[in-house]
């Protein structure tokens, strides 16, 4: 009668709890349920996923370098989480809508967010930067978990319109402790909202291990809210893609929300301001390096012969080009106009603010001719 946990009932389903299609050594694991969802993925598409991952890792490295060089104020690396982000983002349709946190740079890349737009926030030029509607992806939410409710509301809207697109929200393991994420599960379940909750459990919330947030697997929480969940190897791009497709399919078919826990690892610091040596061991990092999402896809592609030297060279060239474009874009970003501080506070005229702006303009004029 005492349900100690949802995992202690020992059914076949739950024993297969952790889904992996691609082992760290690159070999394929057969999985009758999940395999069908990626059966159509061609070698060419695999190479394309590989390219995505290499490129976003390169973006990450370039942005980290730019931060070190003082060109960005901050950067939140995704290093290690490429498969979780690429595998899920590439499963989406263009008209699906994404609500992410600050670490989903790979998702934004897949979405076609311009690189300068992506970096303008980290350079301190904007608080977000892009037009959500042209890419169907909201600007990052920094308040942990807030975006889960936005996605749920958006999905309620989709359902009201009887459309068949889906909202997906990305958040971390730490976010699952926030009231907002839990309320989002309640609302999504109650309204059968077509929303996918995609949790990247990267083992850490800044310095806190996932055990501070959850005593059970994070994926075990959603079912109690009436939301089915999956727990997949987040460093396995195929498993992630399959799980996301399953969830999207359920949502499109009127099946309501699904929760995905992608088990992954933040190989870098929380942000460029962080010093992980204060709270975690080198050994842990080494262990996870052995599960690197790119290496294993590389190994698979090598085994099938899909990764020729030519392909490698092409991918590298692409990554170099993107990195160059990124650097160039950042460095040549134009400073915003001082008076733009007053813009877009309101959509309609606001009497005080116009007065304040006009007074500040008068103030700035007193410096005209100065070198200020």
């Amino acid at each position, binding site marked *: 009668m005492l349900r100690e946990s949802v995992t202690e009932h020992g059914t076949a389903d739950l024993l297969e709890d952790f889904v992996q299609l691609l082992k760290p050594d690159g070999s394929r694991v057969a999985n009758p349920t999940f395999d069908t969802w990626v059966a159509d993925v061609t070698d060419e598409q695999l190479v394309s996923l590989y390219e995505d991952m290499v490129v976003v890792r390169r973006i990450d490295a370039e942005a980290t370098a730019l931060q070190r060089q003082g060109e960005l104020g901050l950067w939140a690396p995704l290093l290690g989480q490429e498969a979780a982000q690429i595998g899920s983002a590439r499963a989406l349709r263009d008209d699906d809508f994404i609500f992410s946190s600050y670490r989903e740079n790979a998702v934004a890349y897949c979405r076609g967010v311009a690189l300068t737009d992506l970096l303008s926030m980290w350079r301190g030029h904007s608080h977000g930067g892009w037009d959500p509607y042209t890419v169907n992806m909201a600007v990052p*939410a920094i308040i942990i978990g807030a975006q889960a409710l936005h996605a749920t509301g*958006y999905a309620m809207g989709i359902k009201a319109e009887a459309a068949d697109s889906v909202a997906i929200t990305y958040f971390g393991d730490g976010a699952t402790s926030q009231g907002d994420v839990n309320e989002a599960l309640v609302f999504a379940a109650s309204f059968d909202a077509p929303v996918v909750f995609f949790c990247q459990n990267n083992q850490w919330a800044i310095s806190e291990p996932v055990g501070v947030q959850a005593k059970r697997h994070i994926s075990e929480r959603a079912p109690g809210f009436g939301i089915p969940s999956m727990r997949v190897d987040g460093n396995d791009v195929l498993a992630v893609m399959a799980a996301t497709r399953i969830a999207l399919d359920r949502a499109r078919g009127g099946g309501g929300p699904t929760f995905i826990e992608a088990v992954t690892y933040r190989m870098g610091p929380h942000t460029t301001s962080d010093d992980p040596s204060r709270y975690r061991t080198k050994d842990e990092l080494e262990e996870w390096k052995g599960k690197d999402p790119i290496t294993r896809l590389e190994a698979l592609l090598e085994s099938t012969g899909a990764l020729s030297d030519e392909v490698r060279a092409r991918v590298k060239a692409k990554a170099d080009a993107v990195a160059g474009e990124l650097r160039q874009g950042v460095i040549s970003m134009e400073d915003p106009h001082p008076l733009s501080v007053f813009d877009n506070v309101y*959509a309609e005229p606001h009497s005080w603010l116009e007065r304040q702006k006009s007074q500040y303009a008068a103030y700035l004029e007193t410096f005209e001719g100065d070198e200020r």
Partner: protein
Amino acid sequence: MTTTTTTQLTLGKALNSGLRRALADDDRVVLIGEDIGALGGVFRVTDGLQAEFGETRVIDSPLAESGIIGTAVGLAMRGFRPVCEIQFDGFIYPGFDQIVAQVAKLHYRTRGHVSMPITIRVPYGGGIGAVEHHSESPESYFAHTAGLRVVTCSTPQDAHTMLRQAIASDDPVLFFEPKRRYWAKGEVDEDIADALPLGKARVVREGTQVTLVTYGPLVATAIDAAAAAEDDGVSIELIDLRSLSPIDFDTVEASVRKTGRLVISHEAQQHGGIGAEIAASITERCFNWLEAAPARVTGFDTPYPPASLEEHFLPDLDRMLDTVDRVLGRPNSLSNWEA
């Protein structure tokens, strides 16, 4: 000129008819809140609307204010115009983060790409003998928050008009409803084309000696106070602020330049309340016209007290007039008071 037909409505029913019009006029308008469906809200402001417009337009939400506001943000991003009901003033705080960090800031954050045409309805204020958390006046928190508009009504006509204007606004609007006035009656014209815009104050009564500024539930009290003052030979110009963000300082300024004296009254706590802002801004604008320091008649800097003490907490006619006497230099309760 078209002929206008007006109806006698209570303030609550005027809100109800405003919501009905908004729902009928624009199918992107959706209502979300606790108990707003079959029950019609605890004050019946949404009475009959779910039956008329269905469960997709009038949504009984789970019991979670952050959830209400947060899903409204998502709905707004999908192109809807959500109208949230917060059941009582004191229950808005669990939704505070979504209001100040998301609703207020998304337009700015996205450099104008995203609008937040969300209206958040909040029955507020005291005087109904309620238990804790059911009588508060939290408007200052929101008026201090850039990106929000904050308004409040005092008559059935304004209730109707301003609610429709708020819903039509592309900005987020905190719409404070003076709950103890829900049953007050007045004429309501549903033709609002020529109505005063949302951000403007209204001179309720002209006068020459003292400008009395208030809003929401205290406007009725102030009308009585002004009448009583007149009997006493004192001429009060009464302004119903209507909008607390932005405040229509121009209207207040014009009045104070005429009267030279300013009294501000609200139920909310004094420290850091709207009254402080008005006193400060008007002193800046009218320093050379002021005959006396602007004075405030407000709730005390205590939590809202138990019902049996609320008559003391709430500014009433006597306290208003005592303060009017003070700015006029007439004998008043503080004449002999020493700090």
